[in-house]
């Protein structure tokens, strides 16, 4: 196999085995390009550790740093930790190692901070394929567009807006959908019977439980539909992570608050042990699996454990209509999956929804009202519950011919615009058309004074604090400095602070006035010794541990350094001194 004849493409995205939108797209693209005789793919997978064997059919690398030095460097710095997740600290090494012809970055735009300064950026072709979900377009995208050979966006509204702003090097390329597992099933009646919903009008929504999915709007629309159509036995199936109440919606709470019958809102449970799944109204998490009897393994889906695509297709086939209200989105894969399964899709007519909601796309648009997202000022949509109820009724009352017509359009739309074959063909054309490049922590300061005062005697000027937070050994050896403190500051009281567990070492020490339990505030010297109007607590606060426990500034090959003056007292046996 001659590498030089093939185009070496480094695909940098969510790892292809992650069950995320980017992960699924990466999987589809990589599997297809891997088979292509003209292309050699290499994967840089976000979300997995660097230097572990990913066992993929192609050359692959995880991107999250595994080097303890880098991990130490980024720990506690949220910005660094975030970019580390996107491979910022490892991508240079990966590019250097695999020497690609093209770098294809497939992530949110903020995953590529200062990539234009990367040593390899101007030496190879680079394509960013990113999701943009709201207007106005993110500044980062506008800044990166001229710096890459091509910018691809997942939704056409973003292309239109960027072009309107004069950014011409942009093209829409939807995320690739492998819809081979998504199709109308002949045994759908049987599947619905399995879950006791065969005589119901089932409205479905498949989503990750995030605040941008308009769950309250959908519940309101569903409630209105029920109120307006009392003879219809309607059920709302929410295939999502119901337990994700901290970063998503507390669905049971909303059901109760809106006075919706909890038996009308269905969830899917999957066994984390045997993969068995079942549809029923929500009954909490950590149930015992009815099939394999494993304890506490039966739960609603999570970000790491869901149902397989064959089973997800069964779920779509349980539905009569698919409803996807959202504030904005990059592509929303479940809409295409639902269409491929032959469902009529109701989608908010904003953001990427405009690629899926019209009649010729097998969809029906949902009306929305604009609101601005606090902080970012982005335009977001609030889907109208009244319109949800109206469109649900429209589908319910549709005759079979109209339904068939829309369903056929939906399947065709996905096949022609989102399928892996179509997307990979377009992508390949783009990659081969690129012109080869020419040579060329802020630690939040806690200024709240600790309630130290009550432990201290006499005046500030009469007090010295010695802080040694860690290790029994260090506390013990540092007691060798105490005679010298007494000699240098005979009139002052010495306070010694360490962690509680080391205090017994100091018990009965004649040089110590009082021991204190260590607190991180003691490392704030201006707070301890005073600043502006604050008089402080101690005349002197010694922090000798900073050079050994916070930073290492004493190593010097162990003993290569020299101390050019006497640091020992007359009582120290100098023949033992190493220096």
């Amino acid at each position, binding site marked *: 196999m001659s590498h030089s004849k093939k185009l070496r493409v480094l695909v940098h995205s969510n790892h292809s085995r992650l069950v995320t939108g980017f992960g699924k797209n990466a999987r589809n693209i990589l599997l297809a390009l891997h088979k292509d005789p003209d292309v050699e793919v290499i994967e840089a997978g976000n979300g997995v550790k660097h230097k572990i064997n990913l066992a993929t059919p192609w050359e692959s690398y995880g991107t999250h740093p595994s080097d*303890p030095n880098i991990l130490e460097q980024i720990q506690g710095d949220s910005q660094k930790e975030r970019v580390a997740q996107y491979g910022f600290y490892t991508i240079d090494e990966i590019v250097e190692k695999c020497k690609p012809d093209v770098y294809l970055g497939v992530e949110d735009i903020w995953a590529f901070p200062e990539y234009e300064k990367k040593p390899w950026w101007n030496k190879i072709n680079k394509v960013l394929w990113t999701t943009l979900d709201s207007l106005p377009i993110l500044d980062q995208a506008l800044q990166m567009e001229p710096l890459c050979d091509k910018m691809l966006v997942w939704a056409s509204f973003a292309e239109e807006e960027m072009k309107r702003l004069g950014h011409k090097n942009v093209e829409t390329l939807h995320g690739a959908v492998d819809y081979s597992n998504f199709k109308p099933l002949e045994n759908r009646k049987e599947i619905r019977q399995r879950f006791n919903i065969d005589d119901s009008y089932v409205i479905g929504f498949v989503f990750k439980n995030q605040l941008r999915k308009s769950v309250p709007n959908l519940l309101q629309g569903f409630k209105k539909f029920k109120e307006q159509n009392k003879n219809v036995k309607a059920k709302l199936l929410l295939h999502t992570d119901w337990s994700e109440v901290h970063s998503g919606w507390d669905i049971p709470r909303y059901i109760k608050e809106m006075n919706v019958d909890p038996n009308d809102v269905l969830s899917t449970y999957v066994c984390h042990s045997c993969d068995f799944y079942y549809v029923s109204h929500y009954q909490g998490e950590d149930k015992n699996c009815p099939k394999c009897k494993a304890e506490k393994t039966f739960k609603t889906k999570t970000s790491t454990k869901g149902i397989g695509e064959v089973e997800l297709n069964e779920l779509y086939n349980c539905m009569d209509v698919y409803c996807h209200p959202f504030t904005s989105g990059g592509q929303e894969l479940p809409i295409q999956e639902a269409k491929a399964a032959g469902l009529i899709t109701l989608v908010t007519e904003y953001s990427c929804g405009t690629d899926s909601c019209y009649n010729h796309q097998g969809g029906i648009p949902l009306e929305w009202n604009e609101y601005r997202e606090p902080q970012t000022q982005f335009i977001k949509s609030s889907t109208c519950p009244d319109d949800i109820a109206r469109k649900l009724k429209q589908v319910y009352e549709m005759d079979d011919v109209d339904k068939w017509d829309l369903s056929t359009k939906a399947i065709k739309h996905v096949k022609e615009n989102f399928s892996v074959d179509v997307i990979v063909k377009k992508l390949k054309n783009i990659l081969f058309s690129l012109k080869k490049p020419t040579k060329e922590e802020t630690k939040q300061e806690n200024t709240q004074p600790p309630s130290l005062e009550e432990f201290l005697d006499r005046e500030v000027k009469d007090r010295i604090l010695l802080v040694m937070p860690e290790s029994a050994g260090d506390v013990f050896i540092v007691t060798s400095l105490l005679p010298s403190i007494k000699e240098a500051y005979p009139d002052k009281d010495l306070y010694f602070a360490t962690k509680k567990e080391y205090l017994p070492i100091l018990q009965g020490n004649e040089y110590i006035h009082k021991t204190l339990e260590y607190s991180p505030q003691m490392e704030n010297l201006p707070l301890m010794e005073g600043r502006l109007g604050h008089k402080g607590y101690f005349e002197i606060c010694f922090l000798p541990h900073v050079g050994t426990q916070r930073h290492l500034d004493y190593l010097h090959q162990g003993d290569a350094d020299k101390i050019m003056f006497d640091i020992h007292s007359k009582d120290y046996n100098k023949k033992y001194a190493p220096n």
Partner: protein
Amino acid sequence: MHLIERYALSTGLKIDNPSISEQFFPTSCKNYVCFHASSKDNLRDYDYWSEVKQILDPKFKDLNLKTIQIGLEKDPSLNCDIDLRGQTNMRQMSWIVKNCDLFIGVDSFPAHLAGFFNRKMVSIYSNSFAACVRPYWGDPANQKVIETERPDGEKPSFSFNENPKTVNRIKPEKIANSAFELLGIEPAKIKTLFMGLMCKQNFVEVIPSQMTSVVAENIIVRMDKSHNEEVLNNIIQRNNVEVITEKPIQESLLKSGRIKKITYRSKNLEGGFIKTIKNYGIPSLLICSDKDKLSSIRAEYFDFLIQECSEAHVVKQNKKRFKENPEQCLITSCKKIVCGDKIYNSLYEFNDKKNKDDFYIDLDWLFVYTEGDE
């Protein structure tokens, strides 16, 4: 620069002698060796103390020296005559160290105490320069400071995340012989040749060619060595097991819930068996032993992690790591090979040392050494 020198320079103070008011603790013996095996972070914990003790104990017995272990309750036991783990406070610990005949331990508080009290002592260092953290007080002639082996000018890690731990590079006889030297005793003639990273992990591998009465916590049934489902069925009546196999195993055995992991290694991995393993929720390691088919099998079963068979590579690499003749070495391992009612220290021994590849494949599970004059 030593830690205390850094503290002195940082504060502008002079180094005198440290102080601690030790507290009496009854020990029921006059002459004893004090062991301290563990540091707070576990990083400096040495895994070969039992090997060290095996060398030391007979001589200590001759000298009528008892052994006492101090430290935390959670520290690993060194099977000392008197076990004081978790029973002393720091000041009582100080009393015990002050009165010992010999101290042996890791880089920690008691080692500083032993130095200060000028006890004969052996202490071991790994993730930092010993010069920075060694005992600062006491006569150096009484101190054997052992720094871990760092080949090719390697420097310490200064890290609390070492994997594998560099302290484990210290050979047991080096510690034991340092103690003997301080006590004026002839050194032991044991020579450690190799310490496998996993040689301290307890495992039992069963070759299921015969019925066995084995009962253990960690059992691997080597169906790849003898595919006998009757014996496997018998073993899982009493144990949870892991299985290594080259052929599918009947579903009733998978259904038992006793098989906790399967390593399935084959030239032609059977999709049906892989899916059955998944259906029963059994964790698996899938290995394709045909390099030419690997890529296509990975694409076919993309949702499963298919690993490359690495035995030939392991043998090649391990031959570079271990250059002595295995036939002339002694082997011990916490992984035992059981066949019927017989127990072996390695697959290499089980196969009458006929196949050296067995030795190299298992190298990381082995502790290899020689005894006596070479």
